[in-house]
C-alpha cells in the first residue's frame, strides 16, 4: 500500500503536491471496486481513514433507507422516469444487488417514513458516485 501511495504522489519540501498519476487501467479497476464496495477505492489507493468514513456513511445511509421502508427501483422500460431512480440506486453497488436478492427495498407507500427512506436510498447511491469520482481524481494525481 505504501508503494501505491508513492505512485500516486507525494508532498514536496516546498509543500506543493507532486502528482504521479496511476495508469488508466489500474485507475478504472480501482474505481470499479469503489463503485461495487463503497469506500474500497480510497482504501486501495492508501486513504484508509477516508475510505472507511465513506463506507460508513454510504452503508449507514443505505441501511437507514431500507429500515425506513424505502423503495429500491429496478430497471423498468414501461416507466421511463424510473430510470433515473434506478441509476441513483445502483450507485450503491453491491449492497443494492444484495438487498434486491434478499427481497428488501420493496417500499411500503403507507409507511410514514417511506419518502425519506426512498430519498436516503437515492442519495447514498449518488454520494457513492461522487466518492468514486474523488478516488479517480486522486489516482490520476489531480488532487492530493
Amino acid at each position, binding site marked *: 500500500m505504501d508503494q501505491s501511495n508513492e505512485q500516486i504522489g507525494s508532498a514536496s519540501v516546498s509543500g506543493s503536491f507532486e502528482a504521479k498519476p496511476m495508469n488508466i487501467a489500474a485507475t478504472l479497476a480501482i474505481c470499479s471496486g469503489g463503485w461495487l464496495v463503497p469506500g474500497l477505492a480510497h482504501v486501495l489507493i492508501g486513504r484508509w481513514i477516508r475510505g472507511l*468514513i465513506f463506507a460508513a456513511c454510504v452503508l449507514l445511509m443505505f441501511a437507514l433507507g431500507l429500515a425506513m421502508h424505502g423503495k429500491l427501483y429496478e430497471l423498468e422500460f414501461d416507466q421511463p422516469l424510473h430510470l433515473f431512480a434506478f441509476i441513483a440506486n445502483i450507485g450503491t453497488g453491491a449492497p443494492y444487488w444484495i438487498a434486491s436478492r434478499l427481497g428488501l427495498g420493496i417500499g411500503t407507500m403507507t409507511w*410514514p417514513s417511506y419518502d425519506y427512506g426512498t430519498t436516503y436510498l437515492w442519495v447514498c447511491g449518488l454520494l457513492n458516485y461522487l*466518492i468514486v469520482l474523488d478516488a479517480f481524481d486522486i489516482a490520476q494525481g489531480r488532487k492530493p
Partner: protein
Amino acid sequence: MIFSHFTALVVFALIVSTVFALITKSEPREQFRYGVFVFFSFLAVAFVVGWIMYPLPL
C-alpha cells in the same frame, strides 16, 4: 423504523455534509469547518423553506 421529520433531516444533513467535506477539502481543519458549514446550511435552508411554505394552502 420511523424517524421524525427533523431527525431524518439531521441524520441526512450529517451524512451528506461529512461526505461533501471530505471530498471538497484536503486539510482536516478545512474539512471540519466546511462540514459544519454545510450541516448548518442544510438545517437553515430547511427551516427557511418550511416557513415560506407554511402559509401556502398545500
